[in-house]
């Protein structure tokens, strides 16, 4: 019985740690308390300062643009077949690069939506200074969590990559 209680207590502590960690990340995702105040969501279409929907809501429109680009890419490939083999290969590389970029954007957007990043303001609280390099890319790794320092727009953030 006491062993069961011990297991339950361990599970409860683990759950508390996970919850606190998640809250911390989500709070950071909201931009952190910057200046010591309560953290608030700072995004939204009005932050764009544009009267155009495509610039105020770029996510929705970029998906439409990607589809249009795919169509354009296909058309270009057909034209390149006539032009010569070398050009066709170059085109493939470009299409592949565009695909990586699209995939990566989606991959990071998913992390962004889930709040898996830390703002510069909150980074000090994370207190992670262990640096590793993978394929020449610099990451911070602490407690089994790996971060990459990147730009999203004009803001530096630490995205959790694993």
């Amino acid at each position, binding site marked *: 019985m006491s062993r069961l209680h011990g297991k339950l207590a361990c599970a409860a502590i683990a759950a508390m740690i996970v919850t606190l960690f998640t809250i911390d990340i989500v709070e950071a995702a909201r931009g952190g308390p*910057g*200046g010591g105040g309560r953290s*608030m*969501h*700072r*995004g*939204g*279409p*009005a*932050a*764009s*300062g*544009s*009267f*155009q*929907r*495509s*610039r*105020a809501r*770029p996510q929705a*429109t*970029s998906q439409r*643009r990607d589809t249009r680009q795919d169509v354009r890419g296909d058309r270009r490939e057909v034209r390149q077949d006539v032009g010569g083999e070398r050009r066709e290969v170059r085109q493939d590389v470009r299409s592949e690069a565009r695909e*990586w*970029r699209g*995939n*990566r*954007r989606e*991959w*990071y957007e998913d992390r962004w939506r889930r709040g898996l990043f830390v703002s*510069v303001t909150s980074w000090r609280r994370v207190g992670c200074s262990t640096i590793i390099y*993978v*394929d020449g*890319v*610099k990451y911070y790794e602490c407690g089994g969590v790996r971060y*990459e*320092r*990147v*730009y*999203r*727009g*004009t*803001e*530096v953030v630490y*995205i959790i*990559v*694993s």
Partner: protein
Amino acid sequence: MEENVPYRVLVCALALAVMIASGAARAAPATTDAEIDPEALAVLRGLADHLAAAQQFAFEAETSYDAVQESGVTVEFGASRRALVSRPNRLRLEGQRREGAKAVTIFDGEAIWVHSPAAEAYATVEQPEGMDDAIDFAVGTLRMKAPLVDLISPQFYETVMGELTRAFYLGETVVAGVPCEHVLLSNEYTDFQLWIATGEEPLPRRIVITYREEPGEPQFRAQFLDWDMAPANVEAQLKFTPPDGAERIRFYIDGRPEDLEAEGDA
């Protein structure tokens, strides 16, 4: 009875015509000639032509916007902004948020650079040709916030007109001591108010954009503090040299997700 047949046909035809007309009225866009005021378009045209003709110009503005929280509460954030434009495709944008974070973005014609002095970081990426394409790339792909860049486009007037559903001239007013003409322009998504200085330099002194279709109808506001139509040291301001100690990092679109996934990432 047979005499009534043409009468009945006429009544049916009239009823059908009324139904079709009412259906067409419902299907037609809300815009009517009465909602596109030529005086408002003339003021807009004056501004657009004036800016499109300027090869170089700079402005400073105090901006703010509403961020609608999940709870429905609306919070205002803001920044001081400065823009320097050199046509056809060079641009410098500076922004300092009210809590202090500052960023400088430079489009030098070949590359886009972003620098954050406090974070001692910068990033760069190839610039697409053409100012509008470069801005669309920065906003749509790099996720930059670049308020007021609509004004910079050489196609500003055409862009507004392409989506226009309403245009009202609201009369003369004074903004921060400057006599202005107040116009309201709408598209399907936003209401866009401009206060444009009267006289030989028809430049905006204030802008308010209301995102009518968004929850809470948030607004963006800009109060222009200064316009400089002959800025100095343009070349120096449009060239980026990484400062000592600044670390080059990536925009989040760089690299391959497969590389990261191969390391055991979900």
